[in-house]
Every structure is written in C-alpha cells, then in structure tokens.
C-alpha cells in the first residue's frame, strides 16, 4: 500500500485541483482530505451525505461563577491570557484557552469545570472516484494535527479492508502541526509549487520539512509559464537537491472553469494542461514504485 501526499507549503498553488484530477485518474484509491482546517476537495468530489462523527479532542475550562470567590489565581497563573477579568468577574476566553488544565488544578475552590471539547467532525463517504475520508475542524478550533492523524488511521484501515493499493491525500498548507502530522511516515510527498518568489521560498521550507522526516519527495511546477526564469531557478534547485521534477504544467483558467462545474480538470477538458496532468499522474505512480523499490 502506498500513501501519496500532495502538499505545497504555499497555499493556492493548485494542490486540491491536482489531487481531484489524480483521484479521477486513480483506480481503487482511498481518497483523503488532510486540510482539515479549510478543506476544499469535497467541493469537487461531492461525497455522499453520510453521518458526521464528532471529533472530540482536549478539554475546555469553564468557571462556575456561583462558586468563584474572585481570588484571581487562575488569571495570574494562565500563560495564555485566557482568563478574562471583567466587571462580571472572571471567565474563560474559549478562543485563547489551550485546555492545559492549570486553572482547573490550582483553583482553591475547585470552581472550574473541565469538559471535553468538540473540535470538529469527520466521516467516511462515497464519491464517484472512490471512498473518501474527510473532516472539518470547527472554525477557530485547535488540535488539527490530531484530526489529521485520525483521518490517516481511518484511511489506512479502509485501504486494508478494501484491498486498496493507494491512499491519495490532499495536504494542508504551511509547515506546522497539521503538515507534520500529514507528512510523517508518508511514502511519497508530491510538492506542488508555482514560479513566484513565494512559491519557490515555501517549497524550500516544505522540502526541508520532508527531509527532516525522511519522506521521499517529488516536485510539480504548476502555472509554469507565469515566470520562466523562476521556473528555471526551481528546476536548478531541484536538480541540486536531487529531487525529481515530474512535470511543468501550464497556467490554464480551465482549472477554475472545471472547479466551478464541480469537476476535475481531466473530466472537464482535454486541454494542454489537462493532458499534462494525465501524464504527470503516470509519473507520480512510477515515482512511488521507484522509491518503493529503492
């Protein structure tokens, strides 16, 4: 079984559009959206409306004002400025609360409740391209790394159950907690970049992250004709690092037109960009097999 993760560092380079096309071109893959914070893959894959399972992680502190003697110890001890000191007494700001439990433990009156926190939901659904595991963190919530880990565990169990040879995952942007949770232990990280200073800079950081976790990496340069000179610099950087560049895909507004129709670009059109995506998918599979053999 291979777990292929599509990531980018920078947002908006085309991760989800390419993942959707790869999902269309794959056979019997388990599909996974690991961008649990701002997930978009479902907008193309249109999963069936199965039951959402609550994602409960961590705790939330809440002061029972009737039992609070206004001693202020919680306010003093909280390192996250999560205890509000107002005219109506002390209260917990749920946005700032990290659920560490310091206030709960040290409150001399035991006047602070500590209740499990529902941070989002996840589910397994059917799509026209195969089974999909996806989730949604409630807006403003934390613990995205744990939700990513849960989705990966579910995807692996499903793949095992269905005899699927491939898990294809759309990753989150950045290099922080959810990305670390998504990338560690993946079989191949396919990095989508674009020839802009930000795209290149962010690629370097996410390559360093994949190196850190010893995850094999390949690169796709999307919107390559936007700046030929930066594309050339990315090619040179990848050659220097020994990273295979699987393809350069031209800038094409058909990616957006397909998205508006709720389709993968490979379903929507046979344009040059669409053909380039078909070719690159074959190379992604070859690359995964090559790393496997090595």
């Amino acid at each position, binding site marked *: 079984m291979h777990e292929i993760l599509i990531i980018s560092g920078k947002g908006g380079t085309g991760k989800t559009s390419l993942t959707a096309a790869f999902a269309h071109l794959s056979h019997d893959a388990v599909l996974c959206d690991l961008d649990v914070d701002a997930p978009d893959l479902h907008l193309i894959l249109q999963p069936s409306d199965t039951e959402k399972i609550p994602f409960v992680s961590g705790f939330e502190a809440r002061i029972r004002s009737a039992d609070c003697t206004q001693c202020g110890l919680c306010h003093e001890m909280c390192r996250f400025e999560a205890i509000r000191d107002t005219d109506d007494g002390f209260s917990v700001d749920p946005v700032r609360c990290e659920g560490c439990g310091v206030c709960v*433990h040290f409150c001399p009156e035991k006047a602070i409740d500590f209740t499990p926190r529902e941070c989002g939901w996840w589910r397994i659904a059917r799509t026209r391209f195969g089974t999909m595991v996806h989730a949604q963190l409630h807006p403003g919530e934390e613990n995205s790394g744990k939700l990513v880990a849960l989705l990966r565990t579910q995807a692996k169990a499903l793949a095992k159950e269905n005899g699927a040879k491939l898990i294809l995952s759309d990753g989150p942007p950045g290099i922080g907690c959810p990305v*670390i949770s998504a990338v560690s232990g993946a079989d191949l990280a396919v990095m989508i970049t674009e020839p802009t200073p930000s795209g290149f800079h962010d690629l370097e950081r996410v390559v360093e992250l994949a190196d850190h976790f010893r995850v094999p990496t390949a690169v796709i340069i999307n919107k390559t004709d936007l700046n030929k000179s930066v594309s050339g610099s990315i090619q040179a950087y990848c050659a220097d690092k020994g990273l295979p560049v699987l393809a350069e895909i031209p800038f094409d507004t058909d990616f957006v037109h397909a998205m508006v129709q709720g389709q993968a670009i490979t379903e929507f059109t046979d344009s040059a960009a669409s053909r380039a995506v078909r070719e690159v998918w074959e190379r992604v599979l070859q690359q995964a097999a090559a790393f496997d053999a090595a």
Partner: protein
Amino acid sequence: MKIAIASGKGGTGKTMVTASLTVSWGAPVVAVDLDVEEPNLHLFLKPELSGRQEAFMEVPLVDEQKCDYCRQCAEFCQFKAISVLPNVVMVFPEMCHGCGGCMALCPREAIATTTRTLGEIAWGRSADNAFIMGRLRVGEAMSPPLIRKVQACLSRTDLFDPAADVLMDAPPGVSCPAVNAVIDSDFILLVTEPTPFGVFDLRLAQEAFRPLHKPMGVVINRAGLGNGAVYDLCREVDLPILAEIPYDRDIAAVYADGRVVALSDPRWQDLFRTLARSIQAAVMNSREARHA
C-alpha cells in the same frame, strides 16, 4: 490601528494585498509578517534587516536527583509531554505547550525550565516603513507561540513608533494560528477569490472570526474569474466588499516577478489607496460606534 490581512484559503493574495497596502497607506506603517510557517512579505517589501533574535519557549527540565517519580506531572500534563516510568522521567519538549503546570505542581520542586527554539524574529525597514517577521523553525509544530512573540515585539518602542499603524499578514486557514494572528487587530481584511474554493473558505473565515466582534471587510482578488457566488455570500453574511482586484495576467506576472502590484501601475496604486482609506474609515466608524 492594527489591521490583520487574512483569508481562509491560501494563495488568494494576502501577501500581495499587504505589500500593496503598505506602500499605499498614506503614512509610514509597521508591516508585520505573522505567516510564520511560510513568511513571504519580505520577498516583496525587500526590507533591509537591522536585527534578529531567536525566539524560545519555556519547557520543563526535570532534576532526577530531586524527583521521586510520583507521576503527578505526567498525570497532569494534557499534552503528554512528560512520561514517568518507575525509575526514569522522559520529557518530550516538542509536545509541550508551555503552560507551566508541571513546574507549579511538583511537590519536590524538581522541575526547572529549559527552552525550545520556536524560530526567529527579524526586523528592519522597507523605505519609510518598519518591518518585522517571524520565521518558524522547520520541524517545529506550533506556530501560535511564535506569532504571539512577534506581536509582543510590536510594543518595543526602541524599534517601532507606537503611533504608527500596523498591517499584519496573517497565516491562511481559520484554526488557531490564524485566530492568534487576528485576535489583537482592530480590523480584519479578508482576501478571497470568486471561485468555489475561495467562497467556501471565506464562509469558514467569517464564522471563525465573527465571535471576535471586530469590523471586517472583503477584498475580492481575481474578480471576473469563477462565478458570482462570493457576492451572494457577502450579501448573506453582511460583509462589505471594499475592493475588487480584476483577474489580470499582468498582475500575476508582476507578483511572480517579486514586485509590489500597487507600484506597478497607476490604476492599481489608485485602487489600493482607495482601499486604504476605506479601511481607515471603517476603523474610525467602529470606534465612534463603540464610544456612542
């Protein structure tokens, strides 16, 4: 006033808008890059950096001479950053959130502090504007502590004019890093694009930020691409559209070239000057409304 430039979806043009607003504000500002996982603002403002410092977080250091393996710290820690076996204590500093609970509760005062490097903070100037950024260490999972440290630096009067307005480029998404970046602002500018992904993530962003009770406005980037759903959403949730930046290959090319869009063409300069005035007016209005 402090303005946070945020989005739900990445790649909608936050950094392009922040850089362009910086040069169009009408007065010197402090430009802040809070997208510490993938900071990009410096690539466009090209600041001359004058200082940098490493940013640390306090994490526990257990003195096993004093420890009697009572396990209270391990049982307390919500983040599984300390594990106590019969005759050994293991600390996992990368799991620690820095709450200080273990140190405070240890009955034998066996826990002191050491530090974990979060990343670095660098500052300098870009033309008339001050500049500061955070850069998360690769491999560090938690960006909110570094975001908070960069924000804390803004109160250093030796580096920044306290009277200057502040423009903050926030990280993408709507979870804890993004919320930490916008929580101390006076106004949240949401940059989106009129595509299904842009619209879906804009809805999430306004749901995440609405409970903060701050004035918000929208910039629609790449207007003309996609469809009209973003306009329907803005009407539905009562978000004012302050500017529309047309879909234009030249703008994409200017950005790809590492240049500031507002400085590339008088049309875009006018657009961003107007946007700056709209934001300034919206902040003034909300202050008056609060005092009334």
